[in-house]
């Protein structure tokens, strides 16, 4: 049950990521996506292998759930958040987008606990909430940096013409 659910969710989230109006170009979004994947991989590996705060599944099928969660769902949700946040005008819309994405990230974590993909050893759902907020803040910071660099490159290109 876990694997089909994660695939269904990944497909729908991919659709949303593909069709939403984006603030950033494909190049910037792809860089953001790859960097967020690197962040989630490091987080999960350090937490499970080094700190032993969480235990990840040893089951081969459930591990695919973890891979989809780590490599597709979390980074795409952060990517959706950054694009929508940067496009939103007014704090109410920004807050709404933040709560919606944070809630989805948190629900995905609850789902991975429910399906025994992850087991908290010295960890809890509140600490996970902080990590998810961290992903969103890092994503937003990276987006702003990428937009700044892209703008600077555009100006340089204009000057060279």
């Amino acid at each position: 049950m876990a694997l089909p659910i994660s695939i269904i969710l990944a497909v729908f989230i991919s659709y949303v990521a593909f069709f939403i109006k984006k603030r950033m170009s494909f190049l910037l979004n792809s860089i953001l996506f790859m960097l967020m994947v690197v962040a989630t991989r490091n987080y999960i590996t350090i937490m499970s292998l080094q700190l032993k705060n969480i235990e990840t599944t040893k089951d081969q099928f459930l591990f695919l759930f973890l891979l989809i969660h780590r490599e597709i769902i979390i980074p795409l949700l952060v990517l959706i958040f950054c694009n929508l946040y940067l496009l939103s005008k007014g704090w109410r819309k920004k807050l709404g987008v933040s709560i919606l994405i944070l809630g989805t990230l948190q629900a995905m974590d609850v789902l991975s606990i429910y399906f025994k993909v992850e087991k908290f050893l010295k960890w809890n759902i509140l600490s996970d909430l902080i990590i998810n907020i961290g992903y969103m803040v890092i994503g937003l910071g990276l987006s702003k940096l990428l937009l700044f660099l892209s703008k600077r490159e555009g100006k340089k290109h204009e000057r060279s013409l």
Partner: protein
Amino acid sequence: MNVVYEKSFDANEWMVIISLIICGLAIWLMPKIFTLLEGCAHFIYGFFIGMFYDHTISVKPWDYYDVNDSSAYQFMDFLSYIMYGPYGYFFIYFYKKINVKGFWHIPYVIIWSTFSLLMEWMGHKLGLFHYEKGYKMHWSIPIYLLAQTIQIIYYHIIKSTSASV
């Protein structure tokens, strides 16, 4: 259980450091044919894809190999993933420079996969990779072919989307 292969700072660590310095200098000194962000994207792709395989098939439940001195995740492991970055950059750098087209994609990808295999063999001999569960080096060939093909597609998508802007 944490498996420790060795504890000394030797060939495998030096391979990572020397490779990073030489490739970093080469990127800096060679004529630039990409914009900063395009160059970064291909560098990050190399790092991203190398890390994907290492964090997928070298961890439990599959756990086919370990990187560096022990099965634990160390700082040197992270540096060895960054080491893949310049290879991703140069793969697409020469692809653009020599203007690979049509069926020439096949020899280009084969040459790079052979080179990657050679680097992996060197890494294995120097203690960077420790194979487990009967993992054979030739199993990496489809991984390289796939990773490089995806990078070529990625390059063309970037090119077409930036041309349409």
